[in-house]
């Protein structure tokens, strides 16, 4: 029982350490823009190929979210779909476990 919450404590510590690392990096690293690594990678592709990023055209036409806000909304929607799945199933299992214990 002494180790009942070991994983919860470890998860808490790792999240706090991660946040501290971010704060330290953002305070000390000059030029840290925190852009997506995908975009940074695209920049390197442009450099290696000698082609400007703007010159890379989609091979298959693609719809793009009209604004950053709409993109953020769609990312939130993706997380929400996952959250509903996870929350729904854990709730279902929790109810089942409680029913078994009641019997």
């Amino acid at each position, binding site marked *: 029982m002494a*180790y*009942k*919450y*070991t*994983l*919860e404590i*470890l*998860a808490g510590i*790792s*999240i706090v350490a*991660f946040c501290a*690392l*971010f704060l330290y*990096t*953002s305070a000390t*690293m000059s*030029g*840290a*823009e*925190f*852009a*997506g*690594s*995908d975009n*940074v*990678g*695209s920049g*390197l*592709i442009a450099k*290696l*190929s000698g082609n400007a990023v703007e010159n*890379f*055209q*989609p*091979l*298959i036409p*693609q*719809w*793009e*979210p009209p604004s950053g806000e709409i*993109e953020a909304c*769609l*990312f*939130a929607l*993706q*997380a929400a*779909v*996952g*959250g*509903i*799945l*996870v929350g*729904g*199933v*854990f709730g*279902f*299992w*929790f109810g*089942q*476990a409680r029913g078994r214990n009641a019997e």
Partner: protein
Amino acid sequence: MHIMEGFLPWQWCLIWWIIALPCLMLGIYQLKKVLNVDREALPLLGVTGGFIFILSSLKLPSVTGSCSHPTGTGLSTISFGPWITAVVCAIVLLFQSLFLAHGGLSVLGANIVSMGIVGPLVGYGVYRLLRDTSVNIYITVFLVTALADMFTYVTTSLELALAYPAGTGGFVSSFILFMGIFAVTQVPLAIVEGVVLALVFKYIVTLKPDILIRLGVFSEKKIDAARSEI
């Protein structure tokens, strides 16, 4: 880890699609088989897939001054293996390429190979190595999750280095440059993801140990030991 639409020559897009498609077909076949045998595997699939949806939508800052996202494929890899994980990843990546302009249809094969196939395959290898040993279940989940995440980004670097070898130093030099962007950024994220998903696995072990035993994820003895440990 997304390679953006138009950033991979069509020949490479084709090669990665040719590799991805048979894996997806095998995954769909295995998924049908698992669900035909045990319908109670469906909620577990929902949870493991749900975490791929959640974690791959979170862009988190890293020590390199850029942002990246975890993959969340570890739980699915342990519970269902790499091929079914590839199918779930394909759904997430398709959503992102159609509605978020992250990735794209031509590069979907390459993105499936990195996030849905190679990453989970490495994780699955680690899982198979440790499954029948005395290594703690949660340490196994941590290692599988963190390594599946890391190798997703190593594979993305490999895919890009193959398509864009550097003028001097060729493929190796290019691979090191891409690794510097993708893999180094990912190290802290992979560690946190590993710990968090190990915690989630603890709740699955607590609430639904029977499905893990029936699917043969871990032996009854190991699950019982894990339940009594923490």
